[in-house]
């Protein structure tokens, strides 16, 4: 058969590679900064743009979508061309994909620092960026499927299936979770409220881990681990079974993020059951990776690349065992809202994603530049720094999580809370926060060594934008979109996999969605729950802007230790007007769902101005700008109208009078503050925030009083 000559596009691989490294350093640096702010709050430089609540999402988005995202694209653009024996479908699309993605990252970082956020974890970006992500993702998809269509290799290697499943699922997840109604250019409300929003969000959040941090990386593992070890994957059959079972099961497990919450019980149990089942396919992948190295462990001793990959695969195995364990209700009761979860995700992020990326970079950069790695020794030092960093990070966070959780739950023999002051449990774990930051510092130092090492490697080599290759042509596939050729089109294997993966993924999601959306009994309505007043709504948006949800939950679980500390446990019906829901996932500070009426207005005013004046030793940052910035009331009309359009029962025409109500409520709060001796103006943002905080959880308290009457 005649050989066709063509070339691989290496330039795009290089670009994504450089972006991976740059954003990796940036994302980890921000991580180190927020980790340090937790024991030294002054590191926010007293700027609203660098305060924990705003830059935590920058850290998570940067490491997930910028570092790991670019690494995925680097790996896909490199391996897909070779597995398909074809150049990428379109150089222009590659270019649009690369620059579009980098632009999104920059805009994301800027808008998050400015406080434009939806507050939904890992989906914080506002609607214009959501649209941009969709467009770029489609460009990536066309480029990928185009390449698969014109491939010269009939069989689709297992890695490609993982890429396909990734593309399809991320597209669905992103779109479904981003259905929001714009209020302004940088402000929107999700159409879902309360429990429904929580379900959609964690269906997304869980599957972002599954299909952005796991499946594409398994694809990369199936390509780069055999390449680096120079031996085939242990069992190709296992890889096939492992792929189908993984994508089928993963999509059902989302509710394990909401155990003991106001989510219906059956949905929680479903999430737990599928999480346990996930061990099998996950470990199938881990075993397949590790056993690939059977008989080659002497190589692992020598080769830093394989060391990175072995630790990565091991970390994957540990994290995917721990995940199901954490989804057991009794374990989750202890671990949820604590640093244990932070430890868990960082085993995955630092170990699995980070180390696999480093292994790939150490293998790929010398290959692209046709040279040897500049220094094996530096790579080994990087390996040990990184490993040590992970150990420091994880062990301190396990320690801190379990310690704090046990303190929260400790009762005295008389039946009162042993540590009624939340702050006491925080102060106990401050040393662990310091050790965690040290671990992060070690890990980042290793990465900086890698940057130097790879730079020197590239410097000593020569790079070719287009790498010549040749392969026999595949029997010509006719244009699949021409009319009358639909039968042929249906038989195209990429579409096959596209369809199958989409279907597999959607069934799981739909079965969980439909009942919760439509069965009214899932969300008991409570007569005393009313929509937020305009001032409270504005205050809530400030709460969202400042990222309060990053440290404060609004979900009291039905445990005695929580009802004693915070008050009556949370009911689903209390959240029906919460667009978005603000349950949170971490309690660095106390739960706020019953915050309303606990403290006088003056307490909140002084506390926001300087938390340690009210709570000595508090690690909460100060928010002095709330006291000086004027509340923007021009948005009230649009906000009320938008809320009404998604089902919040504000009376028709209310938006015209909303600002009158807003001012009246603001006046009463300002007067109250004045009486307490705090000279507050009624047009400041703090007034709105206080209004919101004082409203939190009071609907039910009102109800109780009514019942007593």
């Amino acid at each position, binding site marked *: 058969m005649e050989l066709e000559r063509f070339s691989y596009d290496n330039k795009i691989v290089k670009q994504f590679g450089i972006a991976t490294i740059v954003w990796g350093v940036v994302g980890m640096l921000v991580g180190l900064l927020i980790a340090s702010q937790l024991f030294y709050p002054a590191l926010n430089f007293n700027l609203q743009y660098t305060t924990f609540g705003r830059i935590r999402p920058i850290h998570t988005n940067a490491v997930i979508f910028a570092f790991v995202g670019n690494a995925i694209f680097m790996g896909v653009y490199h391996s897909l061309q070779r597995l398909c024996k074809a150049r990428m479908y379109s150089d222009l699309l590659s270019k649009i994909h690369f620059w579009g993605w980098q632009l999104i990252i920059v805009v994301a970082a800027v808008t998050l620092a400015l406080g434009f956020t939806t507050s939904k974890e890992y989906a914080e970006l506002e609607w214009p960026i959501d649209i941009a992500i969709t467009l770029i993702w489609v460009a990536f998809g066309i480029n990928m499927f185009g390449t698969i269509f014109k491939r010269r290799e009939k069989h689709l290697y297992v890695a490609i299936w993982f890429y396909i499943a990734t593309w399809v699922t991320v597209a669905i997840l992103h779109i479904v979770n981003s259905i929001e109604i714009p209020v302004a250019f940088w402000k929107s409300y999700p159409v879902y409220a309360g429990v429904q929003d929580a379900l959609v969000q964690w269906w997304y959040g869980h599957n972002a881990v599954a299909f952005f941090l796991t499946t594409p990386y398994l694809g990369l593992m199936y390509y780069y681990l055999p390449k680096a070890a120079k031996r085939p994957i242990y069992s190709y059959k296992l890889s096939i079974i492992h792929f189908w079972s993984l994508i089928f099961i993963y999509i059902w497990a989302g509710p394990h993020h909401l155990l003991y919450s106001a989510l219906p019980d059956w949905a929680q149990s479903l999430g737990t059951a599928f999480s346990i089942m996930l061990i099998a396919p996950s470990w199938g992948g881990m075993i397949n990776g590790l056993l690939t190295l059977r008989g080659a462990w002497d190589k692992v001793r020598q080769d830093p690349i394989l060391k990175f990959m072995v630790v990565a695969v091991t970390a994957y195995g540990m994290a995917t065992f721990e995940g199901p364990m954490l989804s057991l209700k009794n374990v989750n009761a202890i671990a949820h809202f604590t640093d244990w979860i932070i430890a868990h995700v960082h085993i995955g992020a630092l170990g699995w994603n980070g180390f696999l990326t480093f292994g790939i970079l150490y293998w790929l950069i010398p290959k692209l530049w046709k040279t040897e790695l500049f220094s094996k020794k530096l790579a080994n030092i990087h390996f040990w720094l990184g490993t040590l960093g992970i150990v420091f990070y994880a062990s301190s966070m396990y320690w801190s999580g379990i310690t704090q959780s046990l303190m929260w739950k400790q009762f005295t023999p008389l039946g009162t809370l042993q540590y009624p002051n939340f702050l006491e449990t925080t102060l106990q774990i401050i040393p662990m926060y310091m050790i965690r930051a040290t671990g992060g510092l070690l890990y980042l130092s290793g990465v900086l060594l890698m940057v130097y090492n790879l730079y020197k490697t590239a410097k000593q080599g020569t790079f070719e934008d287009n790498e010549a290759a040749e392969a026999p042509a595949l029997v010509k596939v006719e244009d699949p979109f021409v009319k009358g050729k639909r039968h042929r089109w249906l038989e195209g294997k990429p579409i096959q996999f596209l369809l199958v993966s989409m279907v597999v993924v959607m*069934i799981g999601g739909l079965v969980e969605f439909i009942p919760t959306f439509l069965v009214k009994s899932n969300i008991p309505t409570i007569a005393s729950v009313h929509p937020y007043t305009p001032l409270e709504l504005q205050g809530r948006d400030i709460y969202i802007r400042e990222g309060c949800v990053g440290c404060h939950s609004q979900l009291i679980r039905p445990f005695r230790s929580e009802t004693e500390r915070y008050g009556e446990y949370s009911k689903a019906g209390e959240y029906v007007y919460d667009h978005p829901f603000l349950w949170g996932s971490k309690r660095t500070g106390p739960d706020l769902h019953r915050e309303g009426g606990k403290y006088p207005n003056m307490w909140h005013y002084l506390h926001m101005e300087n938390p340690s004046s009210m709570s000595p030793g508090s690690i909460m940052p100060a928010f002095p700008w709330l006291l000086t910035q004027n509340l923007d009331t021009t948005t009230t009309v649009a906000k009320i109208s938008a809320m009404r359009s998604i089902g919040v029962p504000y009376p028709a025409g209310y938006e015209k009078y909303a600002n009158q109500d807003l001012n009246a409520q603001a006046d009463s709060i300002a007067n109250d503050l004045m009486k307490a001796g705090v000279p507050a103006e009624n047009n400041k943002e703090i007034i709105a925030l206080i209004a919101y905080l004082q409203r939190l959880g009071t609907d039910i308290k009102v109800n109780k009083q009514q019942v007593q009457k």
Partner: protein
Amino acid sequence: MSVIVVLIGISLFVAIGFLVAFLWAVKSGQYNDTYTPSIRMLFDDEKKQKKDNQ
């Protein structure tokens, strides 16, 4: 409540699509050979290296 009809419609479509696609996948022979692909992916680089040496 018309959304019920829509959602059931989508899920039925999706479920049937899955069934058809899955049956087709098994018949298509994509999985007839579950060994050589794992070996083949290792080779493309080495061929190129040989070429470079020539």
